[in-house]
């Protein structure tokens, strides 16, 4: 092989090696960190992988929010107006968390069927509904009574 060919081959192999390492890492990381989304009806019917972090979207059921008196524990019910999922959360709820509003919750469902939430996200815009909440309500064939875009409670104009 001519020297310049050999060098070009070395460069190509080098790039290919770099790319495959990158792709390998990427796919590995993707597999580890996929959060699947489920509707309250699916969760109530047990159609979710047990022991994994999942995301559900729905409305906060009116009158379901119960705060503990002396700690940050809170229990509420997420609903798609067909099925309910009880949720337990320890922490501060987002500014825009309200009864009757759309939310997305991340966490694991325990043996008692309660979703132990690690993160609660609330809508931040009156005019726009999160695709996830909308999907949940559409799947349950419910007329949506409210709107909500999901976020940690905060928007930005950029």
């Amino acid at each position, binding site marked *: 092989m001519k020297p*310049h060919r050999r*060098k070009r081959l*070395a*460069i190509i192999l*080098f*790039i290919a090696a*770099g*790319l495959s390492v*990158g792709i390998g*890492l*990427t796919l*590995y*990381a*993707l597999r*580890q*960190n*996929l*959060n*699947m*989304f489920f509707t309250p009806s699916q969760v109530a019917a047990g159609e979710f992988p047990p022991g994994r972090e999942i*995301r559900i979207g729905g409305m906060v059921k009116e009158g379901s929010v119960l*705060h503990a*008196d*002396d*700690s*940050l524990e809170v229990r509420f019910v997420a609903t798609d107006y067909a099925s309910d999922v009880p949720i337990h959360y*320890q*922490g*501060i*709820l987002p*500014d*825009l968390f309200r009864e009757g509003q759309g939310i997305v919750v991340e966490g694991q469902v325990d043996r008692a069927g309660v979703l132990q939430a690690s993160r609660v996200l609330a809508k*931040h*815009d009156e*005019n*726009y509904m*999160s*695709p*996830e909440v909308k*999907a949940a309500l559409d799947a349950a064939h419910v007329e949506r009574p409210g709107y909500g*875009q*999901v*976020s*940690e409670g*905060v*928007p*930005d*104009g*950029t």
Partner: protein
Amino acid sequence: MVPEFGQFALILAFCLSLILATLPTIGAARGNLLWMNFARPLSAGIFVFLALCMVILGYAFVTDDFSVQFVAAHSNTLLPLQYKITAIWGGHEGSFLFWTFMLSFWMLMVSIFSRSMPIDFVARVLGVLGFLAAGYILFMIATSNPFDRVVPLAPQDGSDLNSALQDFAFIIHPPTLYMGYVGFSVVFAFAIAALLSGRLDAAWARWSRPWANIAWVWLTGGLALGSWWAYYELGWGGWWAWDPVENPPLITWLLGTALMHSLAVTEKRGVFKSWTVLLAILAFAGSLLGTFITRSGLLTSVHAFASDPTRGVFILGFIGLTVGGSLVLYALRAPLIRNESTFAAVSREVLLLVNNILLVVAAASVLLGTLFPMVYQAITDDLISIGPPYFNAIIVPLAVVLAVALGIGPVCRWKSTSLGYLCSQLTRVAIASLVLGVLVPLLVTLEFSLSVSIGMVLAFWLFLTIGRDVVNRVLSKPDRWQALRTLPASYLGMQLAHFGLAVMIVGVCLTANFSMEKSVLLAAGQSIDLGNYDFQFNGTRPITGPNYIGDEATIVVNHNGKFMRELHPEKRIYVASNSPSTEMAIDAGLFRDLFVTLGEGRNGGAAWSMTLYIKPFIRWVWMGAILMGIGGITAALDKRYRKLRARDQRLREAGESLSPKPQTV
């Protein structure tokens, strides 16, 4: 009546950009000097009319003209004046106008600071930018006109600017970010002009470099400001959240960083040419993708504007047209590009190649993680999301390899370097950074942590290799003081930016590993310990602002039992929109930030939930970004560009005049 003038100015700007997109470019192809000379005045004209649009929209905000839809949706009579003006970029339509105005500003700058470039090149560059401007303005007129009226009845009052946007950082973050984003269109236009003219030489790279540097500086600033804003206003408690709309500027930044390095190789050594052009196209595509993601509403994000699908379709079509078109042009022209020199397996070229590969892989993985949920949904109809752990798992190892290579690169020589020379230069530095990086955190915290050690070893590795290289340069000269003062600006800028990266690594590493936080419910008078600090909650008092009401808490912070200061976090309700907002209280310091956010009052306000944070070294993240920015500006101001520009100009004048003047170089 006034908003209609804005409409009119917008249409005029559109017509001028259509002419700019065609006439000078055709002129350049045919060698028609008159047509080419239209490029500069047309650019100035577009700038003037878009500036007029900005002034008119600003006037509508300041005078509370709620008959304009955009004003009614993003302002309110109670809104303080500075936010009325900046509300121009507080929503989709206005921010798009602002974006296009920025583009016309860059065009004006190109037309002013391009005296030394041949006129056909300038005509092509401005022609490409004119095409982009025409596309953006058409998009505005067709789908998102900021001057649209509310008919038939204008509302009495506006529905107010989103409360999270009523903040100082909002005044400066979007303009800075847009300047950076749009700046990469200029570098893109240079690349396309070079492809069109078939002159992909060192001169093209030299012309592009200062522009790429300046665009990169703005983008760096925009990202840093966005990160700082998210930290203190949005209360995410961190400096980066891997939000789908945070990611596209980062992708553009990674590609832009790769582009700057690759341009250096192209200019100095005449290699990597076609790769550099491809990077310029990709960085521009990254900036367009950012627009698409923000405005199409396809991704769920804090930033996403409420939007309709026609906008997404239009932007996607525009991306297809510009990026697709330029890639076709690239495919046609790239085989003609010849590299001018060769290099050995151990050389600065190879290390810069490593830099480019790592940065592009990083950009591609961030892009994948950002778009994957969307693609997955399209294929399987299942909704998924990808969390920060994915991005961290990818970026951290890449950054580690990048930092190692970065230490070696500047010490390496162009073309070929012997391994023996590298070892003689770097062995002691490597050992020193290993020892320091492991020992320093061990002695301070008295416990060993692998991730802290890796981060600190890398930081010391960068600090020491930079020091080593500067010392090398100075010691080899007889007059050391003179040598230090005459180091070229581009060299100083490079080392300053690399130093900034090292500072940032310290910040990222220590914040990630040593941050503490606690969410608690406290009654007035109760206190809680966190680290060496004691936070005592002393109740709240009601407050009234210009357009909000709220509660302000008093929290007394004691450090090791001694009074340190009071913190006053707030919970506000913005009256017009009835939306709550949390104002953090931060005690900022060089080595740690204390950070308190208020949750909600319980039992009639007798007790409040709140989150307390200690964030060590978080300021170093932004200090690093500031150093990078200063480095970028320093490098762009290198005398070399001006000298060579003067030479280019003299050569051209000599070539153009019929009787060449004698040259004095």
